[in-house]
């Protein structure tokens, strides 16, 4: 186990280094002049010496490898730079927004996990019947739905027409920060979370259905049937147990899609999360912030995959017990 973890940590490090190197390289190739992006509308007021000063301040006049080295060591020290858009340390911004994004993603993730699993099990148990067909059709359609369009529909229905939920943002507008309550936050969280969650149900349901059908067609379920076990008993005793692990690993391996989805959901609802930060950074050329978000997202995806692998090793007796002999 220890060996496995060490190997994984090593992989993470090489991966992160590679990701940052690649991103850094790409960004330095960008035709966008970061100084121009920063100065923006004040372009006419900034003279050439001032331009050079700004460039020197950011170390843009140094050679590439030196810049990367400086940036890399700074990152390791915890100095992720200052965001051009927000004029605050990148790490601070990521910290704040990560909380909001994680809350959104966690809610959506739980929702799609629970409902997706239930739908998948239902469809598999009633395979071939109209229930199965309806669920399959529903999920396949949902999987082809652009999640941001779905978000717009949710916005239209629940915020504009019905007025049950706010039209956007993370907190009520015009309310002082210390007066924002948890229920306010939840109120603003709900629509984006539902958008992300409902569109996420499709993948989970289809996967669960497939796995359960495989289990139900296995030899050991055939024998269980020969023993007179009823459908419900088959599900409870053998079905759930044998699909639990694939279902859990799928959940954790879907962090990448989850993050991507949250970028879109946040945009539709103007929800101040990491996704929105990434979009702003990309549109307005805020290199430090963009790099910061890229690295954070890579860490996030890695955490998900690692958790999936760990759970497998810990839960599946075939792996857990075999390890003892190593």
């Amino acid at each position, binding site marked *: 186990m220890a060996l496995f973890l060490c190997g994984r940590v090593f992989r993470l490090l090489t991966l992160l280094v590679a990701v940052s190197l690649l991103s850094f390289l790409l960004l330095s190739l960008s035709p966008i002049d970061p100084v121009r992006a920063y100065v923006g509308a004040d372009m006419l007021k900034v003279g050439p010496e001032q331009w050079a000063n700004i460039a020197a301040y950011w170390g843009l006049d140094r050679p590439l490898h030196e810049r990367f080295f400086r940036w890399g060591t700074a990152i390791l020290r915890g100095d992720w730079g200052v965001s051009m858009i927000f004029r605050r340390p990148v790490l601070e911004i990521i910290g704040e927004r990560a909380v909001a994004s994680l809350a959104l993603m966690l809610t959506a993730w739980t929702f799609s996990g629970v409902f997706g699993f239930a739908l998948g099990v239902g469809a598999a148990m009633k395979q071939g019947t109209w229930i199965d067909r309806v669920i399959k059709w529903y999920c396949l359609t949902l999987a082809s739905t652009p999640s941001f369009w779905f978000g717009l529909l949710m916005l239209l229905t629940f915020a504009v027409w019905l007025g049950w939920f706010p039209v956007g943002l993370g907190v009520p507008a015009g309310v002082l920060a210390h007066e924002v309550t948890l229920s306010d936050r939840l109120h603003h969280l709900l629509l984006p979370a539902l958008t992300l969650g409902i569109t996420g149900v499709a993948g989970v349901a289809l996967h669960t259905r497939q796995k359960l059908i495989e289990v139900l067609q296995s*030899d*050991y379920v*055939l*024998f*269980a*049937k*020969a*023993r*007179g*076990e009823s459908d419900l008993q088959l599900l409870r*005793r*053998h079905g759930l*147990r*044998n699909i639990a692990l694939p279902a859990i690993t799928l959940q954790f391996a879907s962090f990448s899609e989850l993050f991507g989805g949250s970028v879109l959901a946040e945009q539709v609802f103007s929800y101040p999360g990491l996704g929105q930060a990434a979009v702003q950074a990309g549109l307005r050329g805020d290199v430090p912030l963009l790099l910061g978000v890229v690295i954070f997202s890579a860490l996030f995806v890695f955490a998900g995959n690692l958790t999936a692998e760990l759970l497998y090793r810990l839960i*599946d*007796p*075939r792996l857990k*017990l075999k390890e003892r002999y190593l």
Partner: protein
Amino acid sequence: MSTTASTDKPLLEVSGLSVSFIQYAAGLRQRTFQAISNLNTDIRPGEILAVVGASGSGKSILAHAILGILPGNALVSGSISYAGQELTPKRQAALRGREIALIPQSVNFLDPLMRVGTQVRFSSLNDNGTAMQREIFTRYQLAAGTERLYPFQLSGGMARRVLVATAAASPARLIIADEPTPGLHPEIVKETLAHLRELSAAGRAVMFITHDINAALETADRIAVFYAGTTVETAPAGDFCGEGERLRHPYSKALWQALPQNDFRPVPGSQPSPADLLPGCLFAPRCWLSTLECASAEPALRSIRGGTVRCHHAA
């Protein structure tokens, strides 16, 4: 050989059973596989009936048909009756595990994520499952910790004993053992056969499906010879002796003579494929006694000298 073979009414009677499957062939055409054709057999309480045939001749399908667990694309005709009453699908569902139990071929038929002790306990269908399971494990000389093992951890011999235990723990009066000794070490084969005899001594009927003739001869009271999806002869085990002159069907005689301890002489040719069965007697193409009558008309089931046979030339 069991000594409690009785002359009571049969516990299970199979008449004219035919099972076929519709499958996709190459190019998305469909074909009919006739896995079992017009099969007749019966088994009495406390007796051991061995169904002996070559590998892949559809013997497992017989077991599944009796239990009612054939796949969805199977077409079944004929009749099966248990304890004198028709075995409808509904009745099969009610009797599975309760009156009729299966001993599966390998640990692949056990849930890989569940300890074997728990799985054996499921067979007992009532509250004393744990006690029953422990008693059987002790009787089969399985160590105390075995019940906590997972199927993949069982050695060959342990696996056999656990598989038999799943049937022994159940209240079933009819036990179908599907290939209980596939290519196993002779010691383990002997042990497994002893367990089957034990079950029959307790009054349960055992249908023992196998391709191992010697094992069948050692254990069974009667032997049903299975060929190309049907039973060509059912004979008392004692008829398999000498040159096989007491046997009724040419195939049974050929089978007996093909054994290493006898002439070791095989019959040329091989079983017909279930996809292209010809009319008439299924053994006719390979039979040295075949006549025109054999190729056109399927022989009827006849009772001769205490056994049954399907052959135009049997005596």
